[in-house]
Structure formats: C-alpha cells, structure tokens
C-alpha cells in the first residue's frame, strides 16, 4: 500500500492565471534535503528496517548527479540492499529512460519504510554545495579538483555504511572517467568487497540505478527549492548549454558581487565569462573589474601601485594631498 503524497509547506496553487515560475514546482521533497538552508552542503543517511539483519551479504551502488552544471550542488549517493533481495521488479532496471516524475515516485517508494522495498534498502547522500565546489577550485593553494572531491566523497559515504554495521560484499560504481585506476583505488580501500567500477553502471546494475535516483531527485528538488526561496524566475536545468540558465545568469548578475543565493559555481567558465572577463561578448556593459593580484608571484608590497592605464592604487581611488 502506497503512502499518500505528503503535502509540502512550499506548495502553492499553480493556476493558469498565476505566475507559474514563482510557484514551487515539485510534489515530493525528499528527506535528504535540508529545507532551511538548501543551498548548503548536506549529509543525509537512512538505515534498513531493524528486523533486517545487517550481518548478511549486501550490495551497494554509487552514483552522482550534477557534476557538470553551473548551478547548484553536486550530489553523491550510495544505496544498498541485501544481495538476495530482488530489485528487478521495482522498475529500477532502466534508469536512463526514467522521467523526473517517475524518478520522484520511485524515491518516494524507497522512502516508504512500510513496504518491502523501503525496509530492505538503505541510502545516503552527500550534497556538495555550489559554494563549496567553487571555493575549492578557486583557492590559491592546494586547489581541490572535482575528481579528488568525487573520490573522497564516495569513499567517505561507503565507509559510513560499513561503520553502521552493514556487511557490504559487492560495490558497484558508475564513473565518467577511466574506470581501471579508480577501481584499483577503491578495491584497495575496501578489500572486504568485490568492487566493480564501470561506465553506465546505472543501466547495468539496478542498485546503481537506485543510487542514481537518490542523487538526481535530491539535486533536482534541492535546486528547485533554492529557486523558489529566492523567488527568482525559472533558470532551467542549471547546465550552461541550457538557454534558460545562461539567460538567468546574464539577467540577474550584479556587476560587483555576482549572484544571490550562493547557487552559482563562480569557478565555472560560463560564470567567469559573464562576471570577470571585460571583453567577452557575454559580459555586461556595467562590468566591474576585481583584481585579486594572483599574477604577482612576488610578495605583495602595498606601497607599490599596480601599473595600469588608470593609475589606480591598491585600494580606493587616487587623490593627491
């Protein structure tokens, strides 16, 4: 028996007359989202039902959502269930063909702990905020790159599952880059399991498809919730190839500060072209230059003025006493 859709506190009646872009466009808010500060990084985990023994072989799947977009978080998810629990007749086999509505429905099913599926499946999510991603990439020293972050996050999520007492014996991971080195790394880290890293793992292994759904729904609803709380117009999927996204970026940018909401990845080239590059065709006519003095390798001497045609000093404007 399915649980009724919970009414969310964000739902507003979407009528044809009302401004649909301002309403909250989602029926189900997964528990993996922090609804007070959805723009921030967040860790969430569930467990399996107490009467399901943890000391039996479990398989675990890993997938992510939101690696490429210029808006919103990158979300890593793991999902696990007993090896002898049959996932195939729940509809996870072909995740590539799932619509967002169907994905949302499937995650609701997983969250229903009264059903067989919800009782036997545990899942965890680590959502890395746009702010955290950009700050790591924009650091002056020890820049944190996406791949390192991806691997660290994945291993951390898996370790926490082990720490909760679940005996994971099979690990399946979807990867974008070359699988072999990553598989060796993971296998060495988790020798108690058989590790399989492969591309398109979400279409090969239902448990990965399940993790994929947890990640995608979490990211999609998180992004939509931020948009709703900002009361800003539809910004599309958040990918720079999406015309709605680039339109939103260009129209809502503040020339000094950038964008409200801590939702834009300032390290992404699309964002930098609009905010930081004076001559690019996408920057606004109100462009404001901010110089971080990154190109000088010598220690910063604040008595030396930066050479420029405007003859400006290091801070403030020039005036002569």
């Amino acid at each position, binding site marked *: 028996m399915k649980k009724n859709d919970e009414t969310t506190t964000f739902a507003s009646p979407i009528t044809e007359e009302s401004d649909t872009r301002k309403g909250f466009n989602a029926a189900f808010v997964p528990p993996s989202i922090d609804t007070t500060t959805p723009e921030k990084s967040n860790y969430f985990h569930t467990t399996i039902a107490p009467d399901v023994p943890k000391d039996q072989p479990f398989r675990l799947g890993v997938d992510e959502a939101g690696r490429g977009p210029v808006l919103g978080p990158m979300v890593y998810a793991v999902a696990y269930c007993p090896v002898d629990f049959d996932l195939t007749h729940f509809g996870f086999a072909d995740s590539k063909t799932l619509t967002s509505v169907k994905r949302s429905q499937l995650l609701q099913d997983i969250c229903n702990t009264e059903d067989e599926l919800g009782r036997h499946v545990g899942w965890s999510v680590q959502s890395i905020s746009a702010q955290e991603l950009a700050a790591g990439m*924009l650091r002056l020293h020890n820049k944190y790159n996406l791949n390192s972050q991806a691997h660290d996050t994945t291993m951390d999520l898996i370790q926490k599952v082990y720490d909760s007492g679940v005996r994971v014996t099979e690990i399946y991971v979807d990867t974008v880059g070359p699988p072999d080195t990553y598989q060796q790394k993971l296998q060495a880290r988790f020798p108690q399991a058989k590790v399989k890293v492969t591309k398109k793992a979400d279409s090969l292994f239902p448990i990965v498809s399940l993790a994929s759904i947890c990640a995608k729904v979490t990211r999609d609803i998180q992004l939509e919730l931020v948009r709703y709380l900002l009361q800003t117009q539809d910004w599309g999927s958040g990918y720079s190839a999406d015309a709605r996204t680039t339109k939103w970026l260009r129209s809502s940018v503040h020339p000094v500060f950038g964008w409200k909401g801590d939702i*834009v990845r*300032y390290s992404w080239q699309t964002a930098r072209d609009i905010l*930081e590059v004076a001559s690019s065709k996408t920057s606004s006519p109100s462009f404001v230059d901010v110089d971080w003095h990154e190109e000088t390798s010598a220690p910063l001497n604040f008595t030396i003025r930066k050479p420029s045609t405007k003859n400006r000093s290091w801070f403030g404007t020039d005036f002569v006493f």
Partner: protein
Amino acid sequence: MNKPIILFENENEGKPEENVSLMPCFIGFDGPAPVSEFFHNKISNKDDSNKLLAYFRGRELNGSILQLPENYVGECVEFPLLKSEDHSFTGNKSESEDEANVSDEHCPASSTFSQFKIWDRDVSTSIEQNKWYKGVIEWTQFASRIASTE
C-alpha cells in the same frame, strides 16, 4: 588642482558605526552597492573560532577584527561628486580625468568606526602576521614611543 579638504567635526555622537571591511583585492567601482546584502550580512564564524568566514565572487575569505588603538578613530568620508558624474551602471564609462573631480568644499565625515574587518584568502596564520595589523598596531605603538615626552 583642487584638493579635497576633509573636515573632522568633533560632534561624533549620533554618527553610526560603519560596517567596514578591508578586502584582499582591488574593486574597480566606488559607487553605492548592496554590500550588507551580499557580504556583511552573510559573514559567519569559521569552525567555531573567532575567525570570520565570508565569500566574495566565490572566493573564500578568512577575516579578523582589528580594533583601532586607543585614541584613534576611523572616519568614513564621502567625496561629493560634481553633477556630471554618474554613479549608476550605464553603458558609457567616461575616461577618468587626471584632476581630482571633487568639490572644493569640505567633505564631512559621514560615519565613524572603532574597528574594521581585515580579509585574506586561504589564510592559516594569525592576525599578528597580517601587514595591515602590523601597520596599524605596531606603527602606532612605535610612533607613540617616539613622540613620547616622558
């Protein structure tokens, strides 16, 4: 060339204390901007220490509060501009002239501050290493020793 004359008035009561931050970057703009909304209102504490944490254009900044030494006060001074200058964001940026485009009237201090925030990127050193801290604290101490009549 007209030189601005800054008048420091003694009646500082009633003048609000500004939220003042010294940034580790040059910002090529000096008109009005929503600084509180984008920056000052979003400052948090770094890891439960008294170090401050904020972000500007996606870069993480670590900050400390620098108290001005006793008997020193900070003044925020606004330079009134000639009518021909336009602070709004338009498509036309006129070439800045070499002469200071300021009125030759006195420029009153608009507000005062007794402390300000110093910001840096990727910093793990203490505030005493910061050159601005040294500039304000060490030099004023040094100067008072030199000028001491004892």
